[in-house]
């Protein structure tokens, strides 16, 4: 067997090889896509081409159409997500701390956790109509259960000796919540937040696709109806990019919330 040339090995093995190879892979894919679409090896009405997708994006930005839809989707997400945080964290803390309350809410929680939110959309529309509130409600329902469940799990991971120590210094029940349970469970709450963000984004898009006259999901459906593949691919990729950015952000939040765990793992 011929030994591999040292130069070629060093390109793939040196530090930063991961970024280099990753970038290459993306460029390769884009090049292939442009070739296949541009030469009409596959009909560009089905797959578009990178150049046309960028052009469709520029067009959407220039006519300010994109901002309008982004703003709507963003508002729905923010409304639903903040509401779910406000309900889920206190409820999770209480249900995690008071065991009997935990027993009480657990079966209900698990039922809803397992239920596909998108299947509840028709019912939600009956309750809330087709406006922003029904879509925010989908986000709310998507995010609330992972946050509650992880907050409860976080309480169970709180060291009993922290509680004993606080009591020894004269802490009352409400002190325990603020000074021990909330900060102690925070890393787990953040895991719930990360899962909740992912589900919330899916919720917004699906709800808008189902029933809406605005928002990114509606933009996707309108592009599909007009067989505007360039625009359809652009918006779909944009949604993925937003989801990825939100995921990165929440991973950073998770690490920030528990510096002691991060350093232990390293």
């Amino acid at each position, binding site marked *: 067997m011929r030994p591999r040339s040292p130069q070629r090995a060093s390109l793939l093995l040196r530090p930063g090889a991961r970024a280099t190879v990753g970038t290459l892979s993306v460029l390769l894919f884009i090049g292939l896509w442009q070739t296949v679409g541009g030469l009409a090896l596959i009909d560009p009405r089905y797959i578009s081409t990178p150049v046309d997708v960028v052009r469709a994006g520029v067009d959407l930005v220039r006519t300010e159409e994109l901002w309008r839809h982004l703003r709507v989707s963003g508002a729905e997400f923010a409304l639903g997500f903040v509401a779910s945080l406000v309900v889920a964290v206190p409820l999770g803390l209480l249900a995690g701390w008071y065991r009997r309350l935990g027993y009480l809410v657990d079966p209900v929680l698990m039922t809803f956790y397992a239920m596909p939110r998108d299947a509840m959309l028709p019912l939600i529309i009956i309750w809330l109509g087709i406006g922003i509130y029904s879509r925010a409600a989908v986000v709310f329902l998507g995010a609330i259960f992972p946050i509650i469940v992880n907050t409860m799990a976080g309480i169970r991971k709180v*060291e009993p*000796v*922290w509680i*004993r*120590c*606080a*009591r*020894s*210094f*004269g*802490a*009352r029940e409400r*002190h325990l919540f603020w*000074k*021990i349970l909330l*900060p*102690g469970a*925070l890393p787990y709450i953040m895991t719930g937040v990360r899962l909740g963000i992912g589900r919330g984004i899916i919720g917004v898009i699906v709800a808008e696709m189902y029933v809406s006259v605005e928002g990114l999901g509606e933009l996707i459906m309108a592009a599909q109806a007009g067989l505007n593949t360039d625009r359809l691919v652009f918006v779909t990729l944009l949604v993925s990019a937003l989801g990825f950015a939100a995921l990165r952000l929440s991973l950073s939040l998770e690490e920030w919330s*528990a*510096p*002691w765990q991060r*350093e*232990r793992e390293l």
Partner: protein
Amino acid sequence: MAHIDVRNLWVVYRLPRHDDDLVAVEDFTLALAGRPGEFVSIIGPSGCGKSTLLLAMDGLVQPASGDLLIDGRPVAGPGPDRAVVFQEVALLPWRTVLDNVCFGMEFRGVAAAERQEVARRYVKLVGLSGFERHYPHQLSGGMRQRVGIARALAVHPAILLMDEPFGALDAQTRQLMGVELLRIWDQERKTVVFVTHDLDEAIFLSDRVVVMTARPGRVKAVIPIELPRPRDQGVRNTLAFIDYRRQLWGLLEEEAMKSLDLVEP
């Protein structure tokens, strides 16, 4: 003044899924009719209930029967006259050294600015100046236990309850922490109740050593340690120290064997 008066104290743990309850402390009577600022160690074999006794003194564990009086008043729960240094240190990992030392004062109506000032003073006293902004996971085991001591002292207790505070440290660090503790205690004369299973540690630190029996724990003997103070490492090699060790080991050996089930009870 700090008088601890324990009369016929029983502490019983109810074990889930067991028919029998576990008697941790049985008919324990001890009067630490203390000179204020006395250093008392409680030694006994593993599982003899000495930690339970200490937690009962703090009010964290409810006795099944008997009386537990501090300065003549029954212990109903944790109070401002006592503070515990825990075996597991129990620092809060999301707080800095300074904020951990502040923790105990937060429940006692001390204003925020004063907390910081007091905490700084005690961080300095335990020799951690310069580490105020560090987090517990950035400290060594010995440094963490210093934070635990500073946190307990910062609430100005009359009685310091120490539950095997150096149990998790290596032998050298442990000896050095003993010296450090005496230095700190020299500046902050509290009544100290110090639970340990280490004979040398108990002799080195204490004015009196209480020897407990194997479980269920009762008082077997109370030995005054009349070594001159201030003490340094050298005292460990004196004849008097060795005599105390021999005497205490004689008392403890039988109990330690019992706790290993090597002799019939």
